């Protein structure tokens, strides 16, 4: 089971009614199939369009970057500008907010976090669903009353066990209950995955050459659409190594500065460029990725990006006992060290 959509709607309605928030970022039904889509609610009347189902994949913390850049819903009145933005956050999403708070990218009072506990639920994996159902046309996906999912196809509703179609990120989730929040809808749960890094077992068991072949094949597919970075709540940098143009240009930026912007990566989607981009991105997310797996979901060519990020999450935990996105007040992974950090790899 999971939180009730009515309660979420009621909360959103209340916030908008009271004018406590600028707007609320939540989910609506997508127009193109059974999946939910991000939605921006500005009036209490719209709250009934909000949905909560196992297709609420999106990590809505992503949109806080647009908010900070003032690239969204330009505040109409000064007064409005000071109000927080309401965001519906799952456990994983709340960890993203925790990292954004840790990095002071977002002020705590600039957001009103409407936490939703996933309880024993989570989001589904589209691929697993497709494999499970074949060509049947899916119309609706809901949480089952006592766990699992109910998927309605053109042939009627069927019950599917959670294990069959639950996304890997949820299988290995350590924060089904939001870690930071202003309100939480749903029960407090303390879900402990049996194997928090189980999805890495297979690749880690491969020989180095096999791993290389795996990644060469997978990253070779990359078309560099940058959806992985665009959808990532942590990829909020104005300027990225992948961009060859200097974005942060002001009247003071000299021609030399623009001319010297390093071309770390060419736009050519070939092997070394793709590797460089993905390696840098993985490093950049080390200690920051909270495993919302949005990059992998967004990827149109199905690169298992999660296996890169998850690896570093695991190493951060095992080498440095560092947990990402649980406490906004601790120093970040790479801006701290412990005296006992391992150095057996150093000669």
């Amino acid at each position: 089971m999971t939180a009730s959509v009515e309660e979420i709607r009621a909360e959103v309605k209340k916030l908008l009614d009271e004018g406590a928030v600028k707007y609320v970022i939540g989910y609506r039904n997508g127009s193109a199939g059974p999946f939910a889509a991000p939605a921006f609610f500005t009036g209490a009347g719209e709250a009934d369009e909000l949905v909560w189902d196992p297709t609420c994949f999106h990590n809505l913390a992503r949109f806080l970057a647009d908010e900070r850049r003032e690239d969204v819903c330009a505040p109409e009145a000064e007064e409005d500008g000071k109000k927080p933005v309401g965001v519906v956050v799952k456990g994983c999403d709340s960890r993203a907010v925790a990292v954004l708070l840790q990095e002071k990218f977002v002020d705590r009072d600039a957001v009103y976090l409407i936490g939703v506990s996933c309880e024993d639920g989570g989001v589904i994996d589209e691929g697993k669903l497709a494999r499970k159902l074949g060509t049947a046309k899916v119309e609706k996906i809901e949480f089952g009353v006592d766990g699992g999912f109910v998927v309605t196809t053109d042939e009627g509703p069927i019950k599917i066990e959670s294990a069959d179609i639950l996304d890997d990120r949820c299988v290995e989730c350590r924060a089904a209950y939001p870690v930071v929040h202003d309100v939480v809808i749903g029960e407090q749960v303390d879900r402990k995955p049996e194997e928090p890094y189980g999805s890495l077992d297979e690749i880690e068991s491969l020989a180095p050459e096999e791993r290389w072949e795996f990644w060469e094949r997978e990253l070779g597919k990359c078309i560099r659409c940058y959806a992985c970075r665009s959808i990532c709540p942590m990829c909020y940098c104005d300027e990225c190594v992948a961009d060859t143009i200097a974005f942060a240009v002001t009247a003071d930026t000299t021609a030399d500065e623009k001319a010297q912007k390093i071309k770390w990566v060419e736009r050519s989607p070939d092997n070394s460029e793709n590797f460089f981009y993905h390696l840098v991105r993985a490093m950049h997310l080390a200690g920051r990725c909270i495993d919302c797996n949005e990059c992998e979901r967004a990827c149109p060519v199905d690169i298992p990006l999660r296996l890169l990020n998850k690896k570093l999450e695991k190493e951060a935990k095992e080498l440095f006992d560092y947990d990402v996105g649980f406490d906004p007040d601790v120093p970040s992974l790479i801006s701290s060290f412990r005296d006992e950090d391992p150095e057996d790899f150093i000669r």
Partner: protein
Amino acid sequence: MSDNTYIPKLAEIIDINEEVGGARAVKTFKTVFLNGDRFSFLPGQCAMLSVFGKGESMISISSSPLVEDYLQFSIMKMGRVTSALHEMETGAVIGVRGPYGNNFPMDEWKGKNLIFISGGIGIAPVWCVFQTALGNRGDYGDITFVYGARTSADLVYREEMEKLAKELPVHLSIDVEEPGWAEFVGFVPQNVTDKKPSPKDAIAVTCGPPIMIKFVIEALKELGFEDEQIYTTVENKMKCGIGKCGRCNIGGHYVCNDGPVYSWAELKKLPQEY
């Protein structure tokens, strides 16, 4: 050589003149083609210059087609390619492809008075048409030049301008007072208003920073110019120069093909996307 328009012709820089120094440096380059390549163009057209290893940049041709010895480009140091150009010395070889874009309809202007109004590096596209008009002096009526920059040190072609001032009305301006400056102080549009060129049988060609163009046009309208009498050029980021790469469009217009020259009558119909 192939007729593949993407392949630049090699050209040697034979002369470099440092017009403006400092952070917004401007240099004027004269180039001649190697390998017997030829290039015919019309006033207002542009060429894509290559610095190999750095890339390409679309630059207006400043010399007149009447000059056959060289092509001239006045370039402000701006980004990767223009900075590399500014680092070059005479004898260096660059790539040139083009010409691209449309041109000023100078044939239609025959018999008319021409007023050239430009600011800063905006003189580059105007200089070509201006020189061409001078070269065909008999075809046109009065020729007036209004030109301004932020400071006297930012004036491009200052020497040439001062020589020309002996032959025709040249109205220079700088934005703020400077010791020793005897001419107009203020913005270019104010200078236009001050000099009151007559709209009668006249064509105004203006180029400069967008904000200047906006106010020059207002000033000209005040003076009674019709939209059809005012011409300007537009710049947008370009990569191919031939209407394919998809980025320089203003609405359905591709500046590289359909521009850069527009009469104000044409341009005001287009969406504000430049």
